[in-house]
């Protein structure tokens, strides 16, 4: 992590100074539903940034090489490739539409010149290969330059085709389609550290796939009861451990996390570890269960911790301690008194994601009114920032925002009742090694960088 300008710096403990870098997407007030971003993910090096939207498209941005002539300009992200990943489908048997919305994108570790990613909608996971072509062959014997076949009798001499440079073309092609394995809605995919397998999770089941094999998957978790009337809990997220290829976790709508070891049995219905924080009886309400539902679970890069996001907070768990989290960060506690309204307008069902920075010293998650929150685990400081076009001057520092919870509203504070609940930041991503964050605000993608990078 970069040190703060001036003064001594604590390892990983300095304050960030976030600045606006870029914003992608339409400026229009009218937001087309298909343009709403539903997934954001950096690749393993951070050079590529992928987004998925409700229209089933994937847009990949690539970071430009830093210009040595302008030492202060950091690499900008520009469009690298755009393709239609999923199309809307109709299940005739059940008379149901299948949405093309991209739920998750996960990059595979890069093994050669091409890039691979997995993208999924509610039902089908696809493996995409993104490759560059910057040369083409010229001087074929059997066809003209425009591709028309030549009459073989006219060929009087043979020549060897030569490769000539051409304008860079980035091609995306679907290499594998993993279909028909999920009855319920896929909410997570996670690539294993063995780089050969991955898991996909829906509301009731978790399946294990081999990246090369599309006609078979292994069901490793099944929580479907014999009688659906007995169903009280669903799977909300799942992830493989970053280093131990036999370990994965899945979270539930009741605020629990189960860690499973695939070596212990083929069907991991019995967990190895069970993480749950005891409920605080003084804060019990009709909405206690809904707000405890975990919307995202992410292992730290170190593999020692995991983070969960529920409606009002982010919790950090030590994998060796199942009884309670080691840290709890309040995202927007002022919403606790508004739960009834948020239940009525469905906001209480919003699923926020969360992410770690590269060194696991900071975590980030989104909120409403285009606010997002960052927590520094070392200094215990947190900040609320806003993604808005008003603060979008190049390299302009972001001003911390504050929500007024009651009493007199100070200048520059915003009251809870003035928050725009339609402007939600559900998807955020942090560059794997640098202090660059990508924030999806409805149909716009904001990129912020730390000033001292």
């Amino acid at each position, binding site marked *: 992590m970069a040190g703060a300008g001036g003064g001594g710096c604590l390892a990983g403990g300095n304050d960030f100074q976030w600045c606006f870098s870029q914003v992608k997407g339409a400026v229009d007030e009218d937001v087309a539903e298909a343009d709403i971003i539903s997934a954001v993910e950096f690749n393993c090096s951070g050079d590529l940034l992928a987004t998925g939207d409700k229209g089933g498209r994937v847009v990949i941005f690539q970071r430009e090489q830093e210009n040595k002539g302008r030492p202060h300009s950091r690499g900008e992200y520009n469009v690298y490739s755009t393709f239609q990943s999923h199309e809307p489908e109709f299940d005739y048997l059940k008379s149901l539409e299948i*949405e093309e919305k991209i739920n998750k994108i996960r990059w595979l570790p890069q093994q050669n010149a091409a890039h691979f990613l997995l993208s999924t909608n509610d039902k089908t996971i696809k493996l995409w290969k993104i490759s560059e072509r910057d040369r083409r062959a010229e001087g074929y014997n059997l066809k003209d330059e425009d591709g028309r076949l030549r009459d073989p009798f006219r060929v009087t001499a043979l020549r060897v085709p030569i490769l000539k440079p051409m304008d860079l073309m980035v091609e995306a092609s679907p290499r594998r389609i993993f279909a028909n394995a999920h009855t*319920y809605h896929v909410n997570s995919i996670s690539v294993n550290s063995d780089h050969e397998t991955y898991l996909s999770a829906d509301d009731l089941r978790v399946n294990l796939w081999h990246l090369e094999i599309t006609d078979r998957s292994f069901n490793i978790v099944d929580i479907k009861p014999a009688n659906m*009337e007995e*169903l*009280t809990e669903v799977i909300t997220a799942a992830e493989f451990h970053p280093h131990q290829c036999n370990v994965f976790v899945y979270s539930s709508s009741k605020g629990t996390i189960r860690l499973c070891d695939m070596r212990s049995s083929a069907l991991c219905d019995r967990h190895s570890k069970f993480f749950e924080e005891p409920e605080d009886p003084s804060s019990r309400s009709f909405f206690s269960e809904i707000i405890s539902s975990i919307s995202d679970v992410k292992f730290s890069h170190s593999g020692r911790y995991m983070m969960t996001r529920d409606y009002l907070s982010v919790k950090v768990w030590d994998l060796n301690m199942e009884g309670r989290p080691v840290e709890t960060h309040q995202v927007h506690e002022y919403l606790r008194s508004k739960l009834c*309204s948020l239940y009525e307008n469905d906001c209480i069902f919003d699923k926020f994601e969360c992410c770690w920075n590269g060194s696991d010293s900071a975590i980030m998650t989104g909120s409403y009114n285009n606010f997002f929150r960052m927590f520094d685990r070392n200094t215990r400081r947190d900040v609320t920032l806003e993604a808005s076009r008003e603060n979008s001057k190049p390299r302009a520092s972001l001003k911390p925002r504050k929500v007024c919870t009651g009493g007199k509203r100070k200048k520059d504070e915003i009251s809870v009742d003035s928050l725009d609940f339609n402007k939600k930041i559900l998807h955020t991503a942090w560059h794997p090694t640098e202090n660059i964050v990508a924030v999806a605000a409805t149909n716009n993608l904001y990129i912020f960088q730390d000033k001292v990078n």
Partner: protein
Amino acid sequence: MSLVEEKLPDPWRLELRSFSFRAGYAFNPSTKEAEDMGGLKRKHSDLEEEEEEDGKWEWNPAGLRSYQQALLRISLDKVQRSLGPRAPSLRRHVLIHNTLQQLQAAIRLAPAPAPPLEPLFLGEEDFSLSATIGSILRELDTSMDETEPPPNPVASPGLQDEVMPQADPVFLEALSSRYLGDSGLDDFFLDIDTSAVEKESTLVPPEPPHSLFCAPGSWEWNELDHIMEIILGS
């Protein structure tokens, strides 16, 4: 844990306040009773004034009851609305279903207030509510999972022979169909004849029937009949 308490813990108080602000109910601190403001929202300043008086007054069971019933209506409405061309979100359904069960349990536990503000959800109605709640997930199962045959509805063994089986599946189908979208579940409940129920308002509500099926000629049967009329008649 009983959710009906004379002195509610703080989060409850905050929740009720936010609800009453929206729904147009006002709590009169002197009479300690709920007054319907006719659907008008109070001004923000009124709410702020109230917050300063926090700790001086207590929420009464009547207010809690109307709150619970409103939540019940909202929840049932959600289930109704979520049935669209796309497969419904199982997570959402399960969460609403669990909330409905909590509400049902709380309403059952609460003694009926005198006079009852909304005598809709007392003991006898438990049956239709249970059937509704039970049907939510059952219907989801049959619509989403092609491999599993639709499970048979649960019934206690003794009463099964007495009951005409046609009513139950149709009732379930009616709930999950789009027909009721027009009539609205509010009308569904408002038309119920509550005269039998009102007499017993000062007593503890009678035990709900143990089985999901109902005997012909009973109050529940009439209610089902009424629903059928709405569906077929409209």
